[in-house]
């Protein structure tokens, strides 16, 4: 008899949604079988059985958010119901006889029907009868509650807290009503989807990182020319390399030369990553995601280009796997296609750096005594100051600028 718990499927995961049960109570389970699909903050993953046996219990219904480590199923031997998940009742004997009553069958009898119930409506929320009644009487949304009782049971204290929390915003609303508005329905309520929730949380964390910005102006005439050359040669293969692909490649090569920039602050140490994995910020309808091009320093431009197209497509379709979004060591965010001249990007912890790339635009410069027009692009580096100092970061940015201005070096 063993419990299957919600696994930690990614570094940032705190809870997972049991999206779908693939094994039902009574089904024979072989080690490695997929019991259920778990939807995390990043992707949908399989929950595999680590033991063989028979699925005795589904402890949560589909659609339930489950914290990491909380049991979701019980796998046992023989038919379900032939044994208890755990022996809560110690066999009475003389030695511990002073307290057999406390671990009495009460809890077992009273509590087992809820988690056992396979129906999605029954047992979705573990709660005391009183809490259930109070929630109903006060119109409390059970999904919004976190139980603080034993095993997460929702008790009266949780409902009381929810009731007072509910009444507080009402006060705030009435305050807000006093400010002049042009009419009702001033705002539409858009509930946060999972990506947006994670983005909000991660960027809030990111704000806590002591950081600074360095900006450089890059002459990209040669880069643009090189890209045109390269693409003309690739037309027949149906491959097109973007300016951003060049930048990714250039960043990767520069990171290889500057291992101190390919790092993470780690509390009492600094992690220098052996691989150069560049994350690329991709806007989707659902929100911002950052798929990762692994080993970008050793991949060819066309390989990077092909991979980025595939990753961006998967991102827009919501099909990115966890692997495709994990392991980044540095990120690139490019708003050039929107005509943004320059901007600063927020760090994507634990990465120590992110490069914000603006649009290339023509500028008049004096070159070799002649006034001429060149394409310029502003790049801004955001740096985790705990991992890197200003001079270190400046050296990185200087070398990045040089390689972008002499882009043939990208190819060697």
């Amino acid at each position, binding site marked *: 008899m063993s419990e299957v718990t919600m696994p930690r499927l990614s570094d940032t995961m705190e809870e997972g949604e049991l999206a779908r049960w693939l094994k039902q109570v009574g089904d024979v389970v072989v080690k490695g079988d997929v019991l259920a699909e778990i939807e995390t903050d990043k992707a949908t993953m399989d929950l595999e059985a680590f033991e063989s046996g028979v699925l005795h219990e589904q402890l949560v219904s589909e659609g339930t958010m489950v914290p990491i480590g909380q049991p979701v199923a019980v796998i046992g031997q023989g038919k379900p119901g032939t044994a208890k998940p755990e022996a809560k009742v110690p066999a*009475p004997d003389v030695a511990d*006889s002073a307290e057999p009553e406390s671990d009495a069958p009460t809890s077992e009898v*009273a509590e087992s029907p809820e988690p056992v119930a396979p129906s999605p409506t029954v047992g979705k929320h573990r709660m*005391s009868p009183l809490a*259930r009644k109070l929630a109903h009487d006060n119109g409390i949304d059970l999904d919004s509650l976190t139980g603080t*009782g034993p095993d997460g*049971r929702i*008790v009266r*204290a949780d409902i009381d807290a929810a009731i007072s929390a509910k009444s507080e915003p009402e006060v705030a609303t009435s305050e807000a009503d006093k400010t002049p508005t042009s009419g009702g329905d001033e705002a539409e309520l858009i509930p946060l989807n999972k990506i947006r929730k994670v983005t909000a949380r991660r960027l809030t964390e990111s704000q806590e990182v002591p950081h600074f910005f360095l900006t450089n102006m890059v002459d990209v005439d040669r880069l643009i020319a090189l890209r045109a050359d390269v693409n003309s040669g690739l037309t027949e293969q149906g491959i097109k390399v973007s300016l951003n692909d060049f930048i990714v490649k250039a960043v990767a090569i520069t990171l290889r030369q500057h291992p101190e920039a390919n790092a993470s602050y780690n509390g009492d140490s600094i992690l220098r990553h052996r691989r150069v994995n560049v994350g690329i910020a991709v806007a989707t309808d659902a929100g911002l995601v950052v798929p990762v091009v692994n080993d970008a320093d050793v991949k060819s431009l066309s390989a990077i280009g092909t991979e980025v197209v595939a990753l961006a497509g998967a991102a827009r379709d919501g099909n990115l796997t966890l692997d495709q979004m994990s392991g980044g060591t540095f990120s690139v965010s490019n708003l050039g296609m929107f005509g943004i001249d320059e901007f600063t990007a927020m760090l994507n912890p634990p990465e120590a750096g992110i490069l914000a790339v603006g649009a290339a635009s023509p500028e008049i410069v004096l070159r070799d005594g002649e006034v001429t027009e060149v394409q310029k692009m502003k790049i801004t580096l955001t740096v985790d100051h705990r991992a890197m100092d200003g001079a270190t970061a400046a050296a990185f940015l200087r070398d990045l600028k040089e390689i972008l201005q002499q882009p043939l070096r990208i190819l060697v």
Partner: protein
Amino acid sequence: MTDSTPEPRVITYRQALNETLRAELERDEDVFLIGEEIGIFQGSYKITAGLIEDFGPKRVIDTPISEEGFVGAAIGAAMLGLRPVVEIMTLNFSLIAIDQIVNHAAKMHAMFGGQVKVPMVIRFPGGGGQQLAASHSQNLEVWYAHIPGLKVLAPSTPAEAKSMLTAAIRDDDPVIFLENLALYNMKGEVPAGEQVAEIGKAAVVKAGTDLTIVSYSRGMVTALEVADEFEQQGVSVEVVDLRSLRPLDRETICASVRKTSRAVVFEDDMLSYGIGAEISATISEGAFDYLDAPVRRVAAAEVPLPYSKPLETAAMPHAADLSRVVRETLDATQFTK
């Protein structure tokens, strides 16, 4: 009447029983006492002390060691109109007479279509803790509380001993009257004059708002002790004394839990199939929507009670056990003062 003074007096549970038997013997000549060693020896626990001198051997009858015989004799006498009060030396020996009690006393009235009544009382002490070993230390009142046709009373104070024994003797049904060895020397205030309890009524002996402890008989002493202990910590504990195990006053129990939303049952008997199980089921049926935590039970270890003092003590439920379970129940509901 011995209670000539109007003022309440502080007397022992034993004395309250003795005085009540005397009062009822005086009041009604149909009342008589029957049992082992209750006359010349004055009773194994001296409940009948002095009575044979004043009422004679026809009304205080010493019997051979034959529980089945003298219980059967008393049933017959009751059927013919007398009001016997049987003393069985301890609850444990009532098992020898259980066929008479369960198959005859309890059923006569119904099986003969109401033609006969069996107005009798069977008194005996239950309980352990006196190093009387497993076969002499039991709390089997639940066996009798299970049987329709019987009434089962369990007073926890001298005052209740008086009012409930009076009510039992005057009731027309067979009444099992549960005493407890550990209560006989308990002192308490007993009102003067005639006191007749209402059979089938529990009592809220201490009002509270945060948690209900339900108990009866000797368990009440512990229940009140623990309630006071929590009171000092700012937890308001209500204590319900069942008083009557059959009929059971379910409404008083549920009303209390509807108020407090938490309940712990404390009993001297074994946990399985016990009084606590019945109370717990009653609460889940009558106060389900008011519960904020499962009803917990504190009871004796499920072992034949050991003779050895340390083991006997370990096997019996104590204040510390009750206290811990009360605390766990409060914690389970995030109780804060």
